[in-house]
């Protein structure tokens, strides 16, 4: 049952990204192009996604466990770390350059051709390397 839910959640997420236009990199870069031909679509996507999710968090707060029995994610961690700021900045640079974030990068993997594969390979390699790189940087300090 959990597996079926996970598959359907992934599929619905992917189709939502397609419908909203988030796999179209010109729309995403258009949203980030504040000083050029600004495209406001992403605001509607984020707004549309946050509303049902805000409701879901309220329902979750009134329950002890998820409907299939697992416990809910741990309480909010309020710590703002340098890693959060540096990582998000780096992510923003890559997002702006390509117009892809991890969700749409995977949703368009099946039809985006070789550029999509090249981007995904770079992203996957960096994800695997990140913990090792961070650790050796910390040791070097």
């Amino acid at each position, binding site marked *: 049952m*959990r597996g079926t839910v*996970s*598959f*359907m*959640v992934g599929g*619905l*997420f*992917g189709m939502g*990204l*397609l419908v*909203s236009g988030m*796999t179209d*990199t*010109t729309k995403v*870069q258009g949203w*980030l*192009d504040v000083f050029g031909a600004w495209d*406001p679509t992403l*605001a*509607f*996507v984020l707004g*549309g*996604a946050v509303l*049902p*999710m*805000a409701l879901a*968090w309220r329902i979750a707060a009134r329950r002890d466990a998820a409907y*299939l029995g*697992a*416990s809910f*994610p741990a309480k*909010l961690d309020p710590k703002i770390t340098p890693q*959060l*700021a*540096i990582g*998000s900045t*780096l*992510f*923003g640079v*890559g*997002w*702006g*350059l*390509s*117009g892809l*974030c*991890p*969700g749409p*990068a*995977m949703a368009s*993997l*099946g039809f985006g*051709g070789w550029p*999509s594969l090249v*981007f995904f390979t*770079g992203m996957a*390699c*960096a*994800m695997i390397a*990140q913990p090792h790189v961070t650790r050796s940087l910390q040791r070097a300090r």
Partner: protein
Amino acid sequence: MPLDWIYGLIGGIMIGGAASAYLLLNGKIMGASGLLGGVLDGSHAGTSRRDALFFLAGLIGVPFVWHLLRGAPETQLTTNVFVLILAGLCVGFGTRLANGCTSGHGVCGISRLSPRGIVATLFYLSAGAMTVLLARHGLGVI
């Protein structure tokens, strides 16, 4: 297109619906970078790993099947290999270091009024806007 915002809103509600179902049924946060990264670096174990693998199969497989039936949607991704690799590396490294991306920090974090989610979103939005400004209007590479 004048109808773009309606599609944006409908697609957004689908994304939020997916994240809600993942939280309420499986008790997990739907974060694309965390689910992929955990599978790749082996930090997910047992049920989490299984959940993540099924999630990734749906996320990649359903749009793939859709494109076979209805044709490929617009992507417009650059064909500049240097830009593709650099961008991929930044997105992969950055989202793992920050522990989240647009879905985890953005959708799931903002809706919970998480300070970390809101701060992360401010950082990647401003970095993205600065990058487009420099790379498009300054260097002209995108």
